[in-house]
């Protein structure tokens, strides 16, 4: 068993910061890597060491395996933590890290490869007795071929998916034969761009499903535990935005069955370290294997808060070869946790990415609030990377308290400079259907932005507007010169106004 003393974090943003924090608490040294635009990013400022790895585009920096491994070796790191995204589910990277004599904090390259192919993983799960959505495990090239498969699984509606997929890219719902050709083409083109692989496969569409996933953790001795579930049904463009633990609707008996199935799935692919088995759950609480994510999930904090564990620390311990310190019987949930992803996006304009410099930033705090952020008040949000700025997580002794706390915390959150998903999250959290647990993956499409409350023309707001206008003109307290450049305070001279009024009378 090799003790890990120094970890290179092959990532950026909030997840790099989050991993650094756990390492510091374990007294493990941290090595950050950064692209040219990230020299002053929080992960660079917080790590013990930091090395440049190339220009801004991730293909030339955060995806540059050789460079990252070279930095790890030169800095004397024992291990590499990939975070999520970038190289986290790249089997070649996992293999190269191991071949360089470093510990890859995650499962084996072979496990990553198997689970990375959506078609191969479906095959493995089917063989292991894990329920999967009816569909094909073959790559589809032509429309006719697709049509035949669709008939064999009982017809429309179906879902097209990218075999190398993730994050909703390449996914298309097809409800009628007429839609198939265009959907197939669009899906293949998007998949090619996103993953360099245009392989598409077909599944029966599970209507109005919930997306519920099970966190698992496995050590090198074959000891596997499941760590409750996360409900990630609140998605926009097939991407998760709000997640919670536990699910609002799962009876203990179904939870136990899903947990056992997830362990079965992990065992079927020889899983070691932290992973997540994603399921679709239909209205009758039947569940179907969707995919296995062979890494830490974005939404892992809700599990941590409810179970009282630190998944990154456990990942490091397992990677060292330590046996899991958790026994299934001893794992106890307490209360409820919710996560809102705070993206630099404009929710009122179709969630378009919003780039710019952060002018001001004030994070929510206080009881039951956790914030994992990847930006600081000086940060620039660029187009180069995922626009996730931070994750806001609240814990409550029950779901109602967690929701009330999240609403309180979202209202405390202040960001100037870019638009964010905060108003969107607030609208969802305040929605009666969300509060009652009546939602599935179609929730956002069905309700946003129609669910926004009407803004009433409040007279008090008019008074506030007039007061601000007055302050601007009278007090001239424009310390940062910001207003001055946008608007010259008007200084109407008496004669000019009189002149104008006379002109008006003449008209």
């Amino acid at each position: 068993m090799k003790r890990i003393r120094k970890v290179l974090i092959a990532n950026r943003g909030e997840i790099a910061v989050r991993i650094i924090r756990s390492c510091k608490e374990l007294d493990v040294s941290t090595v950050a890597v950064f692209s040219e635009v990230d020299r002053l990013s929080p992960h660079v400022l917080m790590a013990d060491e930091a090395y440049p790895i190339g220009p801004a585009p991730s293909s030339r920096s955060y995806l540059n395996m050789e460079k990252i491994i070279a930095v790890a070796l030169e800095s004397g790191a024992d291990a590499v933590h990939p975070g999520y995204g970038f190289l986290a589910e790249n089997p070649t990277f996992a293999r190269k890290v191991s071949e360089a004599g470093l510990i890859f904090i995650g499962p084996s390259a072979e496990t990553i490869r198997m689970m990375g192919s959506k078609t191969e993983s479906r095959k493995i799960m089917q063989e292991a007795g894990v329920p999967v959505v009816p569909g094909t495990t073959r790559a589809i090239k032509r429309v006719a071929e697709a049509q035949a498969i669709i008939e064999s699984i009982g017809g429309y509606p179906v879902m097209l998916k990218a075999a190398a997929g993730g994050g909703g890219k390449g996914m298309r719902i097809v409800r009628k034969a007429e839609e198939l050709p265009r959907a197939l083409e669009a899906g293949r083109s998007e998949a090619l761009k996103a993953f360099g692989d245009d392989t598409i496969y077909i599944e029966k569409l599970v209507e109005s499903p919930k997306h519920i996933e099970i966190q698992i953790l496995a050590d090198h001795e074959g000891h596997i535990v499941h760590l409750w579930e996360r409900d990630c049904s609140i998605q926009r463009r097939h991407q998760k935005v709000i997640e919670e633990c536990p699910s609002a609707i799962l009876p203990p008996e179904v939870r136990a069955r899903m947990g056992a199935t997830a362990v079965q799935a992990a065992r079927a692919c020889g899983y070691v370290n932290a992973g997540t088995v994603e399921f679709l759950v239909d209205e009758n609480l039947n569940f179907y294997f969707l995919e296995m994510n062979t890494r830490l999930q974005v939404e892992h904090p809700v599990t941590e808060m409810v179970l009282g564990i630190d998944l990154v620390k456990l990942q490091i311990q397992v990677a060292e070869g330590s046996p899991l310190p958790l026994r299934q019987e001893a794992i106890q949930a307490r209360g409820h946790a919710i996560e809102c992803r705070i993206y630099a996006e404009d929710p009122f304009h179709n969630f378009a990415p919003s780039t710019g410099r952060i002018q001001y930033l004030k994070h929510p705090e206080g009881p039951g609030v956790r914030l994992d952020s990847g930006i600081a008040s000086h940060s620039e949000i660029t187009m180069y990377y995922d626009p996730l700025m931070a994750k806001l997580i609240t814990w409550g002794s029950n779901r109602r308290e967690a929701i009330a706390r999240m609403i309180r915390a979202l209202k405390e959150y202040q960001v100037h400079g870019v638009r964010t998903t905060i108003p969107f999250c607030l609208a969802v959290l305040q929605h009666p259907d969300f509060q009652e647990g009546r939602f599935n993956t179609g929730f956002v499409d069905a309700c946003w932005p129609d669910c926004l409350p009407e803004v009433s023309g409040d007279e008090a707001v008019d008074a506030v507007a007039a007061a601000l206008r007055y302050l601007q003109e009278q007090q001239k307290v424009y310390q940062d010169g910001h207003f001055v450049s946008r608007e010259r305070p008007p200084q109407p001279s008496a004669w000019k106004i009189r002149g104008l009024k006379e002109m008006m009378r003449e008209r």
Partner: protein
Amino acid sequence: MVYYIRKGEAFFPVEVEDRNGILWIRVGETLFQLDPRRVANEQYSVLVNGKSFFVELVHPAPEMVFKIDQQEYALTVLNERQKIEREIFGRTERVHGHGEVRAPMPGLILRVEVQVGEEVTIGQPLLIMEAMKMENEIRAPIDGVVKEIVVEPHQAVEKEDLLIRLE
């Protein structure tokens, strides 16, 4: 001091009287007592009859945009001179980019989904651009008619580049 707030096409007067830093503001029939203070750069604290509003100013007057409790309010607030100018000359100070559709971020134009002369309604997709590895729909900010299409498919654009002009 009188300001004019636009509601629809009309402008309503709002009277402001400064009594030693406390403002007495009349909106319609209602008289409010306000204590507005600047907290930091574009943040204000305004007490309105004791109600505490924390206000983040997103865009200054006359086309003001501000946030209270994450709710965004957009109001046009004119002073006497601006009101008279608008009445005479029409809306001289055009809302920036109102009919101008600009790139929200750098990226690549994939498809243009409308034609010059076409009538569009607010929210209708105008074109698709790729940025941050995603396909993003750019939608019409107003109801109107497509006057000019400035870009074409496969063209790279910078943030704030003009894409389409509506009228």
